[in-house]
């Protein structure tokens, strides 16, 4: 294993900044201004959401169309946040989404990377065909699969705890795992891992084989440790749809105790919509996503850049 420690992937290596020629000062200022303008442009909706979450409903609309919409001025308070916590079991929704999203990410990284490893590193007949079939599933939108999938999961057997015993039941509706299992295998994640694994030199495999390593050891102790950016990218790309999922939990979850945050958002759309509370709730559920992106930002950008995948 020691032979692999000093190896660094050429594709994900960060070029030495010192060797780059710096652009002229005027150009640097121009680039900074453009970047700043873009940053402000993309940040505006989030700023508006955060600021509006502090205002009463009528003031939100009164401030629209002026700079006041983006400034914490007027009757600013945390009343909307208090209203959110009074109106919905926010922490329960949040916990549900965290459990569902994290489980989907962890299992998704594991399963999809294993599939990609088999497709990328192992030699077996038909792997090209299998890869093609997996990629072909990318063109099928989830909406077309939702109803058949619903029918299917409702027929699957399940084990249910009944006191100190277990009982076989039919149907996965109203469970955590019905919100997780159908989304673990993901063609796009397989493709990302496949792309990344293909860039890792095969000489590493051969060296490890000489040292007596099996395929699982190569996967777990050589390939995966070198695939940080791909893992980060897949984690984020799996986490976001899991966090934002709405249609599927709406179809399969009836119990409030198991609903994720996005279904919770609908609680605020009544005949009289409380826009301040909508903004407060949206702010609260956006925080984890932003935090996750900031945490994995560097790896995410590295992987996107190296795999040539654009979102």
């Amino acid at each position, binding site marked *: 294993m020691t032979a692999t420690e000093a190896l660094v992937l050429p594709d994900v290596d960060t070029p030495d900044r010192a060797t780059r020629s710096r652009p002229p000062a005027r150009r640097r200022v121009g680039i900074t201004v453009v970047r700043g303008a873009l940053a402000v442009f993309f940040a505006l909706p989030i700023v508006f959401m955060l600021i509006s979450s502090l205002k009463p409903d*009528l003031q939100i609309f009164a401030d629209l169309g002026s700079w006041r919409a983006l400034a914490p001025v007027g009757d600013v308070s945390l009343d909307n946040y208090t209203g959110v916590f009074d109106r919905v079991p926010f922490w329960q929704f949040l916990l549900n989404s965290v459990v569902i999203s994290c489980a989907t990410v962890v299992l998704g990284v594991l399963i999809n990377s294993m599939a990609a490893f088999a497709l990328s590193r192992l030699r077996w007949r038909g792997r090209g065909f299998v890869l093609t079939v997996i990629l072909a599933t990318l063109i099928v939108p989830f909406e077309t699969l939702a109803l058949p999938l619903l*029918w299917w999961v409702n027929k699957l057997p399940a084990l249910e705890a*009944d006191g100190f015993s277990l*009982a076989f039941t039919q149907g996965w509706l109203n469970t955590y795992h019905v919100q997780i299992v159908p989304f673990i295998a993901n063609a796009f994640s397989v493709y990302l891992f496949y792309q990344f694994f293909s860039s890792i030199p095969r000489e590493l495999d051969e060296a490890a084989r000489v040292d007596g390593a099996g395929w699982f050891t190569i996967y777990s102790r050589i390939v995966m440790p070198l695939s940080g950016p791909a893992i980060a990218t897949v984690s984020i790309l799996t986490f976001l749809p899991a966090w934002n999922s709405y249609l599927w939990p*709406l*179809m399969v979850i009836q119990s409030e105790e198991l609903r994720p945050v996005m279904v919770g958002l609908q609680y605020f759309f009544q005949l*009289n919509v409380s*826009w301040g509370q909508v903004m407060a709730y949206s702010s609260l559920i956006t925080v984890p996503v932003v935090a996750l992106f900031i945490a994995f930002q560097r790896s995410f950008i590295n992987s996107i850049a190296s795999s040539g995948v654009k979102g």
Partner: protein
Amino acid sequence: MSRKIGRIVAASLATLAVAATAGCVAGGGSGDGAGSSSTIELWTHAGGNEAELGVITTIVEDFNASQDEYTVEVTDFPQDAYNDAVVAAATAGDLPCIVDIDGPNVANWAWAGYIQPLGLPEETYDGQLPGTLGVIDDEVYAYGFFDVALAMFSRESTLNDAGVRIPTVDDPWTGDEFDEALAKIDGLGRYDQAVDFGTGGGGEWIPYAYSPLLQSFGGDLIDRSTFETADGALNGPEALEWAQWFRGLVDSGYMAQTSGEDATADFVNGTSGILYTGNWADATVRDAFDDAVVLPPPNFGDGPKIGAGSWQWGLTTGCDEVDGARAYLEFAHDTKYFVEYGEATGLIPATLDAAEEIPAFAEGGDSRIYLELANQFAVVRPETAAYPFISSVFQKATQDILSGGDPQAILDKAVSDIDRDIEQNGGYTF
């Protein structure tokens, strides 16, 4: 190593199998034992609506305490997610016994086999507003505790300054008077729009809000004598007149082609002179203006019209405890619960008896006008299983008309689409 893992897996599976087998034995007898009550599931759209959910919970608790044969359990969904959840549950064969249904969907759900006739005694519905009953082929499939009414809101000062008379339920504006009023309010120069019809709204708001205007002109969404065609009703001269008038409001600058996200908030903030919306905006408007006035919709020839049919309660076809569910629905149909709904939500109580017990809706009350509007001008959306399709077609047609398309061509296309759908579904006969 792999052999060891294999043993662990095998041992785990064996343990699991034994435990599961034991569980199967135990589970076989874990149903309702002697003396325990049967559970009746009830689903409601009132998730997030504390007032409405509170009343439902009260009724359920009262019913559960009143007898020991049945226990009703409430599951609440947020309103915007509710219909999809019910349809998904129906697909999975997992519907509860009692559901609430948006009025215009009753016929479709009955046709689809989700719900069955309530089977309650006829006299149960004495004194109930017609728009709050889901009646198909003379059978009641659902009843509601409340209704909502469309109205127009303005300020006395605005109308007086514009030199416009204030209309009443007995003497509403004519179409010409309304147009004249809009011109005068526009002439004040105070408002971005003389009237806000909520054109930024989408979905069911469009047929709910605008088909009564069409009906006041003499048109309709479908020929109600047969429910088999929209020809003549949705593309006749009256419908064309409605379409041209509605688009004309945009052309003349009296109305925005797409208004703001919240028309009530815009009205309160002084963006519009007249607001056309439902009585759910009453409290917000009255809180904002001391001189707020509630106006009936104009009479464009066939009398003022407003929509009818809010949420109602129905009994599903797959219910295992039909007697218990009927017992609950009969228990709930009590004036005191209609009163509680009206007081908690501020919406129109569905029976006249309940209205008399709520000061706001009793004779002389601030909200009495909504009851009168609902009683005199309400037109239920077509009671046909084709309604969801008609609704979606009308939504598109209205948006195309407001966008400046050729009204006759748009209406003819809508009629063609609706007629084809009805034909393809065999006339939606039961």
